[in-house]
């Protein structure tokens, strides 16, 4: 049986033709499962539309404050609340929060801190003006009413 003679040495190369498929499989796996740690927004956010939008040059100067009705009404009630970072704040705590945010900035930029107010469009002016009063108190007077572009007629 010469045909069953000694085999030649086994091929040591691993076939790589399926590698792209494996890579794509991984890619899709990560695409589907990855959730970037974003700030969890605890309040409703329907950002109002406006036309006269401006963009700020330095994004590092911006701190975000969210105002709206809590999503979890069972826990936080239905009155509009203020969220900064990951937690809901009471209005008097805003001053402290602003000071913390300001301390994170380099010394030269501290006066330029800008608060981006992401307020829900259903919020009344009462809470908004309370927040503004606190911001004045904290001497963070540059504020940005976050809004999305309105389609011009």
């Amino acid at each position: 049986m010469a045909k069953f003679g000694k085999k030649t040495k086994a091929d040591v190369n691993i076939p790589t033709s399926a590698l792209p498929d494996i890579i794509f499989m991984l890619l899709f796996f990560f695409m589907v499962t990855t959730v970037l740690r974003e700030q969890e927004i605890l309040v409703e956010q329907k950002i109002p539309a406006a036309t006269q939008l401006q963009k700020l040059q330095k994004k590092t100067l911006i701190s975000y404050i969210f105002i709206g009705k809590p999503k979890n009404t069972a826990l936080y009630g239905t009155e509009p609340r203020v969220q900064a970072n990951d937690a809901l704040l009471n209005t008097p705590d805003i001053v402290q929060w602003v000071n913390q945010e300001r301390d994170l900035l380099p010394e030269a930029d501290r006066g330029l801190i800008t608060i981006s107010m992401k307020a829900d469009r259903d919020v009344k002016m009462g809470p908004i003006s309370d927040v503004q009063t606190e911001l004045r108190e904290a001497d963070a007077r540059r504020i940005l009413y976050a809004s999305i572009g309105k389609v011009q007629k």
Partner: protein
Amino acid sequence: MARKKNRMSTEVNAGSMADIAFLLLIFFLVTTTIASDKGILNILPPKLDPNNPPPKIDLNERNIFTILLNANDQLLVEGEFRESPEGLDEDVKAFIMNFGSPDEEGIALYNSLPASVKALAARNPDSSDDPGEAVVSIKTDRGTSYDKYLEVFDLTKKAYFDIYAQRVNLSTDEYRALTGKNDAETSLQDRGKEGIPMAISIAEPNKIGGN
């Protein structure tokens, strides 16, 4: 010389490096969200110092353009009732550029304006004296919706930006897009607003319709 043994190749297969790179690229493309930091900029007044109250400045009534917004989102503009803020920007523009009785600075400013902006000056004695004096005051109730307030504020800003842009021959959008990142942009910005301060006063809201 002994025959060298044929060793297994020690080279790492680099053919799929490109795939890995693409993988990373696509991963970051997909997961990066670009936060939109657009909005309407407002500068709040400094906090009140009880020991050192700001000097009382008497402004003539004609130099103040009052916009009242009540808890039902209805407007009272210069004493006139309005259901919707539409067209408010034109009224504000006419008010700012009225040049009722300009002082010397005002006259110099007027002479420096391009013809298209000059055309706005109605010289109405019951409206603002000159742009340096004109103040737009927005007052709301606590029950006014933020949406409506922002709409009015937006229109007021539009009036100012329209004027600034017209002065430097840009469209309003182009003027607003100036960020002042180089000297040319800064000088355009400054030329636009020189002598016409954006004086929008946000009054403390009334305690009506809210808490």
